[in-house]
């Protein structure tokens, strides 16, 4: 049993490493209420300073885990996930088991009503032997990552690893442009989830899905869609994306024209 380990942000928020955003949010609200200095239930156990310290820890953990991008970086920095090329959901399935252990200290805070959810929090057993119980957030690259994640929507081309770009190039060979599923394929090659794409490009998830599934009736005029796709491709760092965008926009326009023609025939 690994009884000695550093606390991760997941421990601080009392959630599992696979917790959804919703769970993280609920746990955060509950913790904030609990460690608020006005809470009667803290009486005699903690003074205001200690409560404030706990509060600060909770805030910090929430800031990272509530941001998909920062969270992925954090997961990598604590060794929770070693691969970065797959989408979040797939990565959890293939995550190697041995690095996980049951934390004997963390309880299940989510069991507010006692329907006995005795699930245990899976966290990483840290390889470092430091006694510091402050949540793991040490690497400077990680700090940079956090700063990046708090930037405004991505405007410039993201840098992707050469392998990823090669994969994208290989995938684009011989493909007839104009189909929305190409964008989905590229997104999956880059290991970017729909949520992340929405967060970073500020394109709504409905539009992302409509583009990827060719649901033209849900899309705005092609001029807007072109703008969306430019941010989309720039964020994925797709090489020579302009032809893909033009082809898709043309298909959208064609669809629109044919629809209008149909309407005019019917109205006649």
């Amino acid at each position, binding site marked *: *049993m690994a*009884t*000695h*380990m550093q606390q991760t942000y997941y421990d601080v928020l*009392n959630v599992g490493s696979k917790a959804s955003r919703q769970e993280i949010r609920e746990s955060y609200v*509950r*913790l904030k*209420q*609990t460690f608020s200095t006005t*809470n*009667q*239930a*803290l*009486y*005699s*156990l*903690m*003074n205001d*300073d*200690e*409560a404030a*310290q*706990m509060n600060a820890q909770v805030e910090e953990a929430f800031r990272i885990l509530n941001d998909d991008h920062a969270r992925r970086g954090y997961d990598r920095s604590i060794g929770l996930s070693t691969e970065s090329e797959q989408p979040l959901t797939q990565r959890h399935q293939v995550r190697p088991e041995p690095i996980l252990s049951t934390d*004997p*200290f*963390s*309880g*299940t*805070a989510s*069991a*507010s*009503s*006692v*329907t*006995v959810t*005795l699930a245990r929090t899976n966290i990483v057993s840290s390889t470092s*032997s430091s*006694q510091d*119980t402050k949540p793991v957030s040490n690497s400077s690259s990680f700090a940079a990552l956090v700063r990046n994640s708090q930037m405004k929507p991505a405007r410039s081309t993201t840098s992707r690893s050469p392998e990823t770009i090669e994969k994208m190039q290989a995938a684009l060979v011989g493909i007839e442009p104009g189909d929305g599923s190409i964008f989905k394929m590229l997104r999956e090659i880059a290991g970017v989830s729909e949520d992340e794409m929405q967060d970073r490009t500020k394109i709504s998830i409905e539009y992302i899905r409509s583009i990827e599934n060719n649901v033209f009736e849900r899309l705005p005029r092609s001029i807007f869609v072109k703008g969306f796709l430019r941010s989309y491709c720039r964020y994925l760092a797709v090489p020579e994306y302009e032809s893909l965008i033009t082809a898709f926009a043309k298909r959208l326009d064609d669809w629109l024209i044919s629809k209008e023609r149909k309407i005019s025939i019917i109205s006649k």
Partner: protein
Amino acid sequence: MTMSTDLKSAATVRQNPSARLHMALPPLHCQRGWLLGLPPHVQVPAGELPRMLAVGGGKGGVGKSILSANLASKLAQAGYRVLVVDLDLGCANLHTHFGIPKPRFTLANHILFGDRSFAEIITPTTIAGVALIAGGQEAAWGRHLARGPEALLPLWDALLKSRQYFQVDFVIMDLGAGTQRHTMDFFSAANLGIATVLPEPTSIENAYVFLKTYLWHLVDHVAMRTGQQDAANDLRAILTKISQEGSGKGYVDALRQLSVAYPAYISDVLLAMRSRNLGVVVNQTRSQADIEIGSSMELICRRYFGLQAFFLGDLNYDDCAWKSLRNRRLLLSDFPHSILSRRLTRVSENVVNLVANQSQASVNP
């Protein structure tokens, strides 16, 4: 469970409106983690054990007895056989909550005077399925308890064998106020210890003192049962420092630190802690903020003490509590349709859920 009690409880369940509470309880045998936290002088008999529930909370007047009596009745209505023991030795008044006069024979006859057997001091109550052992009000209890922890050994033996002799499903121990040794010993024996608090600073403060003392006792018991006194001394030193200087990180952090030096001992302490559940009940709630104290305490007990805490529910402030006492009737019988009665049902449901799940987990690890 024997065939006859099976049929009996099944019949009770059919007649009863609270039958939805009933859940089959798998046989419970002594588990290592539970044994580690027991007082070292207590011997556990072979065979099936009853589920032990203890109701404590440190401060007086927070509703320990009213909860014990009514929880026992709710469990009995659901078809379980319940034995309630008044362990507020010297100040016993649990019989009054059941609306019965002071029984002729009490615990004092069995323990202090030795003139009655354990079976003779079991008193029936007005609720079918609930039996009461009244605590004596004799002043001699003080002297007797001062003789040391062995003074109550016959009671321990009888309680642990109550499943075998009387087919008892639940033993509910109604503890007195304070953190006396025998109180903490009984609380540490509970599969589910219930801490009753009022939404008042005095009660909350005492509840935390009570829980700290409880942890100290667990630490002691584990050390004595496993012969790891050195480790226990170091842990005590750290815990004392935390108590005096305060640390937001709490006891969990102390255990974490010591786990490097004494991995075996700390893992035993953690096992003992994990084999017990702690229930939190907030009594006399008047507002939503009062109720939220319960879930906050659940979280704090987990984060600070590392205990497996669960908020079992709240009991609202209601005049029917004192009215039923004046009427000399059990609250549930006197005001069966009150909101308070419904909230007691919810607490009982949570108790059954917790205890049933706990034993399944321990039987099939």
